[in-house]
């Protein structure tokens, strides 16, 4: 049984077919690299798996159970959390508010348990390796680096016990050292026994952390490789060949 399985997913926008019968799955405690060129259908697929919009046709199963009408709220309740490119952070607010955004710890009257939230934020930051004095619970997110912001978004997902974290192009626009930080966060997801879909068009970023690679091309899953089977160079050659239509 897979953690998540999508069967025969179709989606079109007007006359444009974004997905044409995609079969895709993620196993327990597995990092899947979802790769493909721009326009391959990666974003459409993850938006369907996150409940942002429904498929035209196809079925989604989570822990073996068929999910009817998957919404963002329902996905979150199931433990599917997506960290979009925009990271869903409110950057002029402090870190502790961002970690608990939309899921604040409150008393019955709705008043925030501020010290508890700050304490939990501090603990969480330490567990993901943020020991810098600049990254305190009161730090304003705007002043953090791109990698640190991505870390905050991933940490937030981990804190709320996400079973499956979907990362949408998490390394776009980041420097080498920042990218390395993000890759460490992805490893942390695996170490915690959770699963992850890492969407990227940069194979060099996803190769070191993924267990399996699924290649999307023009709305279809065209190839699947296990890490043991391919070296980075071989995988890179295969992707180039797929992009050229080979």
């Amino acid at each position, binding site marked *: 049984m897979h953690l998540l399985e999508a069967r025969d997913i179709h989606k079109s926008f007007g006359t444009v077919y974004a997905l044409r019968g995609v079969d895709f799955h993620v196993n327990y405690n597995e990092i899947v690299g979802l790769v493909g060129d721009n326009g391959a259908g990666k974003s459409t697929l993850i938006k369907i798996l996150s409940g942002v919009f429904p498929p035209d046709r196809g079925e989604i199963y989570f822990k073996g159970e068929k999910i009817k009408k998957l919404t963002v709220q329902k996905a979150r309740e199931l433990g599917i959390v997506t960290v979009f490119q925009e990271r869903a952070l*409110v*950057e*002029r*607010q402090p870190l502790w*508010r961002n970690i608990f*955004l*939309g899921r604040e710890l409150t008393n019955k009257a*709705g008043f*925030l348990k501020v010290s508890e939230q700050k304490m939990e934020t501090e603990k969480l930051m330490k567990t993901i390796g943020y020991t810098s004095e600049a990254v305190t619970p009161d730090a304003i997110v705007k002043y953090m680096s791109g990698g640190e912001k991505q870390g905050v978004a991933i940490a937030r997902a981990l804190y709320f016990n996400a079973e499956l974290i979907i990362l949408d192009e998490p390394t776009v626009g980041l420097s080498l050292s920042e990218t390395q930080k993000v890759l460490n966060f992805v490893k942390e997801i695996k170490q915690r026994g959770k699963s992850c879909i890492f969407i990227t068009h940069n194979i060099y970023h996803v190769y070191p952390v993924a267990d399996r690679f699924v290649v999307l091309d023009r709305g279809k899953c065209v190839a699947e490789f296990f890490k043991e089977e391919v070296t980075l160079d071989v995988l890179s050659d295969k992707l180039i060949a797929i992009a050229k239509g080979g």
Partner: protein
Amino acid sequence: MNIRFFKKNNKSNLNNVILSKFKNLWKSFTLQLIVSLAYFGLCMLFLILSPSAFSKPATYTSILTVAPFTAILAMGITFVIVSGEIDLSFGSVAGLGAYIFTQIWLLTHNETLSLIGGLFVGSLAGALNGILVTKIGIISMIATLGTNFFWRGVIMVLTEGFGSSLVDTKDTFLRYILVGKVGEIPNQLLWSIALFILFWLILNRHKIGSHIYAVGDNIESARMMGINPTKVKTIAYIISGVSASFVGIMSTLLLLTFWPSTGEGYLLVALAAVFLGGNPPGGGVGTLFGSLIGSFMLGWINTGLIAAGATGFWTNLVYGLTIILSIIAYKFAKKR
């Protein structure tokens, strides 16, 4: 040698920690500190310019009688501004609240019912603004400019431009509670302080306040995290509407007369107080403390200029200058 080195090192670490604490404090409270310093400077300036006027308690009573009205309005609007919108209708909503209060009073002579009626209509007017902005999608400046004219028009049509006397409220408990005095302290000042505490708790320590900041900061991020911007912005408008009608009721009780123009003069002054308090119009940031102090600063300027012998014509000029200078100072401090 080693001991000396450790002592020196520890001292230097301690200095760094203190310096870093100060830096954090400055970063977190830049706005409040600048506004407070500006207010303090202004008080000193008027004390020097007009020591005789500012040594009389009557001057302070005058400021503290009127400025709390501006402060309550400004604090209400702060919720809307932090949520990333603007409210230009609160002056007319103040008039509407006062009108409904007066009508219920004239019909029933029931203080509680009149107060609830006045506040309720303020909340409805706020909710209407929220619906126009969030559900129908009208730009808040245009939507609330429209409702500002609409509510004033409703009042004018219903009253045909005539006021109503509320002399018989003079000895009521409600009037005493809202605009009476404890010793020499006007109760409206105490209300403005009590509301500041309540509003501060809502904006800074309640889930709703957290969502207001989030929606004003980045509406899409807030939405992705399951926050409903329509609900949040409507709540902000309701708070502004209730605050406005509360001020309308208080000012009517203070004057013992309902005038169809009630609330008209507050529009620019209350907005000026919000911006003077360092609250930027873009949303996501802003403090109630700034709005509160901004209101009292404007009260000081108004009274201070007259006490210092300037004509009323100078008031707007100095208002404008103070707002621009304070915003420049705020920008400069933020850059540093």
